[in-house]
């Protein structure tokens, strides 16, 4: 049984169908890359899966249960982890507090009014651990908003790690990162992949990265799933060549 499955998942914005009847199953322990040109609906598809947007039609099945009607916080609690494409942090809190909150959400989820947050050493210690995993340990006391773009992306990923989800959804994790920062993140994704109980969904434009990491590639174009299969097969398909070349052309244009 797949751990995650979408059935004819659809969302319409007015007349525009951003995700169009996408049916796709994800087996536990696999890494699926989702590719497609800008505006194809990849981020929107993620939003439907993790609950940031309500589906117009179709279902999301997670661990055998229909979670389509659940809000995003309940999906997170069930084990769906999400790192956002546009960095989405708590800007005026420290880097450590950002991660500590994620750890608290997992390890101390009940409403606790009367204990002192600062005395929960186990939450702070765990938070330091996740910061070290994304090589941000030295920035723990910094305010999140003053981090460099690359460091913010890493913190974004640290928040997801701290949730210890069963499904990791990375939305262009390396976008805008400098060349020397990218390996830290790719190594991290690879390390998660080593754990065969974890499932990864990865939206990524860099084809070399996708080929190296993915067990399977899914191609979205205009909100529709147009190809799905092993990396070598999918990359050779004409429709993908076209979409992929489209991306290349755009990237070249962006310089």
């Amino acid at each position, binding site marked *: 049984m797949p751990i995650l499955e979408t059935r004819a998942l659809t969302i319409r914005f007015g007349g525009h169908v951003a995700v169009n009847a996408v049916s796709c199953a994800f087996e536990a322990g696999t890494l699926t890359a989702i590719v497609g040109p800008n505006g194809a609906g990849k981020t929107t598809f993620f939003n439907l899966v*993790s609950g*940031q947007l309500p589906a117009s039609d179709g279902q999301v099945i997670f661990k055998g249960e229909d979670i389509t009607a659940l809000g995003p916080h309940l999906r997170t*609690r069930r084990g769906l982890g999400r790192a956002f494409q546009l960095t989405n942090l708590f*800007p005026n809190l*420290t880097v450590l507090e950002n991660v500590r909150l994620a750890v608290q959400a997992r390890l*101390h989820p009940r409403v606790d009014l*009367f204990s002192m947050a*600062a005395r929960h050493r186990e939450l702070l210690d765990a938070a330091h651990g996740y910061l070290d995993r994304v090589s941000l340990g030295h920035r723990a006391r910094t305010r999140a908003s003053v981090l460099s773009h690359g460091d913010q992306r890493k913190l974004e990923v640290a928040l997801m790690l701290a949730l210890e989800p069963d499904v990791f959804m990375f939305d262009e994790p390396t976008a805008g990162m400098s060349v020397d920062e990218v390996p830290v993140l790719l190594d991290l994704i690879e390390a998660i992949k080593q754990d065969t109980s974890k499932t990864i969904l990865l939206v990524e434009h860099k084809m070399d990265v996708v080929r190296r990491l993915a067990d399977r590639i899914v191609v979205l174009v205009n909100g529709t799933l147009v190809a799905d299969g092993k990396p070598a097969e999918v990359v050779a398909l004409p429709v993908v060549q076209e979409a992929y070349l489209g991306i290349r052309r755009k990237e070249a244009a962006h310089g």
Partner: protein
Amino acid sequence: MIIDTILSGDRPRSRLLGALLMAAFLALAFAPFLFPGTKALGVASRICIFIVLAASYDIVLGYTGIVSFAHAMFFGIGAYGVAIALSNLPVGWGAIFIGLGGALVVSAVLAVAIGFISLRLRALYFSMMTLALASFALIVATQLRDITGGEDGLTFSLPHLLAVSYRPFAAPVLGVRIDGRIVTYYLVFTAATALFLLMLRIVNSPFGRVLQAIRENEFRAQALGFSVVLHRTLAGTIGALMATCAGALLALVLRYNGPSASLSFEIMVDSILLMTVVGGMGTLYGPLLGAIVIVLAQYYLQPGMAALAEWTDGVPLLPHLFNPDRWLLWLGVLFVLIVYFFPTGLVGRMRGWTEPDE
């Protein structure tokens, strides 16, 4: 350390602020002896009560960003709860607790209802709705004459220990004759200290950290698995309950309650909002300082100006400027200056930005 346990780890993080807090605490703790007299005792009681009230509003405004104008309503509910109980039941501690208990239940129900309405309305409409609710509460309080005493309000007596005529000691203590008023003051001072420290604990608890997260980025807090609805509603309810307790204390101090004493718009705007914003939102110590500054201004600005006007008599223009009737104008000027020069309030200014962790 014990001090961290008492302050819930929320140190003043500024020498000046620490010194001011210490001075305020000592001044209030010994107020009946340091500043003898009925008026001074009234001012000290009012400061204690408004510290609780402004801090409770900070939990709503500063920690969750909800702009509600209905906060004075909860203050009024507390005051009316005690006043109605003491006017109708045999006078005693039982009546006070029944009145307070009933008021807390009414406030909790209303706060939860407001919390759910806030989900359906956008921020601006929500604020307007709370304004309408506050006017409605004022109308109810003035119209239900048989219960609330209408415009005139209710005057009542207090249990023996708190009655003005009560004399625990035959001889004066430190030169001050102890009576029921002073006993009442110490009841208010103790309750206010306990309630403030309780709120300080709540904003520094795991729950308080989630409130901060929601204020910073609601969308992300939700994505981490926190229920924004639950946390907001609970914060609103806690703020409401604390305001209700403050209202009950006010009724005990005044031995009277009426619409203008606890329910008016002046209380909402001139006191609660002003104190929170001037002191510094989202710090809890801010509203504490704000309450002290504003209550002192309310009581002593007018007489101070009368003195100034007299003193400058004969100088052109100045006596007009210091005409006691213009005290509200000066309060307004004070407010604008503070907000202009210290946009993060007095406490924000004293602290600067420092790490909130460990």
